């Protein structure tokens, strides 16, 4: 269990994480990038930009 860097809730993770893998937080839905494995460290993943006619 690692804290989500976006909302602070605990994020359940699987055992064989790899750096660069993208997971998501079940509480806030944020996409999170694994940036370290020992110990596991998460950061918010870069978002795909969308053009809604702006």
């Amino acid at each position, binding site marked *: 269990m690692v804290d989500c860097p*976006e*909302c*602070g*809730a605990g994020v359940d993770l699987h055992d064989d994480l790899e750096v660069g893998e993208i997971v*998501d*937080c079940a*509480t*806030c*839905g*944020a*996409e999170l990038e694994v940036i370290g494995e020992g110990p596991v460290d998460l950061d918010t*993943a870069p*978002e795909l930009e969308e053009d809604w006619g702006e």
Partner: protein
Amino acid sequence: MTTTASVVGGTGFTGGELLRLLDGHPEFAVVQATSRSEANKTVGGVHPNLRHMNLRFSDPEDLDSVDVLFACTPHGVSMERIDRFRDAAGTVVDLSADFRLPAAEYYDDHYDGHDRPELLAEAEYALPELNRENLPGADLVAAGGCNATATIVGLLPLFGHDILSGGERIVVDVKVGSSEGGAGGGAAASHAERSGVVRPYAPTGHRHEAEIEAYLGTSVSFTVHAVDMIRGASATCHVFPDDPVSKGDMWGAYRGQYEDEPFVRMASGGGGVYRYPEPKAVAGSNVAEVGFEVDPPNERLVVFSAIDNMMKGSAGQAVHAANVALGFEETTGLAATGFHPIGSP
């Protein structure tokens, strides 16, 4: 032991939704549904999704004795007939506005007064996220209004976690589906006129302002648009706090308020297609979605909330409150999730 229930005013959309929920509820047995206009006709003839129910509408003058009476009558009827309702049932759950405000002044200012103001103190507001502690054992329960529910659920965490104190400026814009207007309809509700609209139908002075003020302790500037949905209410609340608020502050408030709530989900800028609350994502369920963004350059918070007006905004909320009032597990009969994908709900 089965709890008997009746639905008074069963031909409307809310009555039909309530019958659907009670029909699938393991603790309730629906023994009566009344209708003045459809008396002696089958429930399934009005609500096609309920054709399997072996039940005909009966005259509302002949109320059966039941454990719980759900009143889905137009505003003004329940306050007039409340003594008869209470004679017929140990618990009355009213889905109109007649008992949802806590004092007569609100009815004087926003409605046409109140016939039985002495009963307002007895009534418990149905929204469990706000009033759970007072619902167990309540025998007069008043379901909240759909637009007010969407707004209150969205803003509530800001008041319990030192982000707002009550004097700040708040502007609320709610987009609602056509089922909010009821089954009666009129010229403005015909398909040809209603389809495709983004129609401001209550630019100022909406009655639900009173409910928001009563239960959040603050006034809001409130506007409602009718949009091209059937189910759904989506509130966008522009909030101007006195002091800077960080995203961490907001997450602390929303997680603190709702993390353990069975019918509130947070959707706030995460991944996927639906990054913020969306009526489509909750249609048919009793779930409210809430989310937010912070806007430091404009010293603003934007709070979003989405509900199914027929569920969390009326019938679902009523059943949820009845579950709490009667001591049932509070999610009983309300576990259904929405559909995905789905068209306009």
